[in-house]
């Protein structure tokens, strides 16, 4: 047993978790994420219910074009991620890399457009910071709308950044042939995360951009 005192503490035969169990861990994390965004959605519902008119009016100041195109981009990226996972399952390395790169590009365009949109809004002084100027009625409450808008989309964008970073790492790994048909769990997990981010946007888009358009 003396040799067992080796400085590495690797224990023998640690159980390999099957893929389902590892995904379960991810799902539990996503349940947690639902609650993380959830509080913001709850705040949104309560304030919109209290000030429906103001929210509708404020929503009209957002750029529905960019919002719509971005939704399309994000949905497409969800497809490419799904296809990437599919490629990984089939062991098609090149295809995997291609789909991931496509996803990253789509994500970057999304963020670029989002940045453009933010800069427009900053110029119109719609950012609810110290220079907030709102042309419509009830600037104070409209400000609440914009606070929610910027927090929710900002948090969403941060999540996208995290996803993109993960995908970049996975591309590198795949490049180095570290991802195989037997071991593609990282792709699967990153994919789950990305789809979750997509789902958040699926709700954000109509709630933020599409009220009061009639």
């Amino acid at each position, binding site marked *: 047993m003396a040799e067992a005192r080796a400085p590495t503490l690797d224990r023998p035969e640690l159980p390999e978790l099957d893929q389902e169990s590892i995904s379960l861990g991810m799902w539990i994390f996503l349940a947690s994420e639902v609650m993380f965004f959830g509080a913001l959605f709850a705040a949104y519902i309560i304030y919109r219910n209290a000030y429906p008119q103001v929210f509708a009016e404020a929503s009209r100041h957002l750029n529905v074009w960019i919002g719509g195109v971005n939704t399309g981009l994000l949905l497409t990226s969800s497809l490419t991620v799904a296809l990437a996972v599919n490629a990984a399952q089939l062991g098609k390395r090149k295809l995997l890399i291609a789909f991931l790169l496509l996803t990253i590009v789509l994500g970057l365009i999304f963020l670029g457009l989002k940045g453009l949109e933010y800069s427009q809004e900053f110029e119109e002084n719609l950012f609810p910071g110290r220079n907030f100027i709102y042309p419509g009625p009830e600037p*104070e409450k409209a400000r609440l709308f914009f606070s929610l808008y910027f927090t929710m989309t900002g948090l969403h964008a941060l999540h996208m950044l995290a996803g993109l970073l993960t995908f970049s790492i996975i591309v590198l790994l795949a490049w180095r042939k570290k991802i195989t048909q037997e071991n593609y769990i990282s792709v699967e997990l990153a994919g789950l995360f990305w789809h979750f981010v997509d789902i958040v946007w699926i709700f954000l888009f109509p709630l933020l951009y599409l009220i009061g358009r009639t």
Partner: protein
Amino acid sequence: MVDLPIFPIEASTIAIHVDLLLTGLVAISTVFTLIVLVLMVYFGLKYRRGKTADRSNPPLTSTKIELAWIFGLILLSVGAYTWATVIFFNMNRPPEETIDISVVGLQWMWKFQHADGQREINELHVPVGYPVRLVMTSQDVIHSFFVPAFRLKNDVIPGRYTELWFEATKTGEFHLFCAEYCGTNHAEMIGKIIVMDPRAYQEWLGGQPGGVSMVQAGEELFTELGCSSCHVAGAGVRAPTLAGMFGSEVRLASGETVVADEAYIRESILFPQEKIVTGYDPIMPSYQGRVSEEQIMQLIAYIRSLSGETGPEGGEDENQ
């Protein structure tokens, strides 16, 4: 001279109910704590390791027993819950006729204004035996108006009105505490409620430099701020008449109806676009930043008086 008062004085109509409820809960709790204690000691002695005792066939589980105590407790809980909740709703429902006093909390003092305009800081004079209603708001952070002798408290929240009503049953001076943490001198945001007999109270009111009553002050503001330029019959602008509005149901452009209470009027003044009266244009300007919380309370008092609401003066008429 250590004297250890351990029970607070009861000085409001509600206090006796709260204390009775407390007694009830203490009784229930004592029973349960004692049952647990006695059983622990008894079993502990009887079945102490090394002692011979009948340990044969120890019961492992019994759905019957479990369900029995679950349902027993549900019944007990429903009883206690109902008792407490009924008292609570009585605490919340003020009688029709009250003496209204407006309260503004700020770091770190209490400001009061009586219907006739008398102002006080950190001291509040009220008559014994009359229901008093406080309409409270805060100018900065959340505070809480707490009078232990009355067994009452309610938070005082910026941007909103909260209420508290009580009927004192004893004359004397009672503690007023701020119970919600509000910053450095939270512990010094304290004061006194001085309960007087009605005659002394009237004298006290008379002796105060009251000057302008809430309603009068409100009326002056109403002209000063230009409300009257719209809300007066014959004004060039079409705006709803405010006479008879208070307490009525107002139909809004959105189709909803709301009851015109203090909060509604406050909102109409600060955020006029939010609830538009049906049939009118949303042209009323916001007065946010132009009126203080105290002034809003005066405006409300005035608008109430237009509805012939006994409101602010009501309590007083009674005293005479």
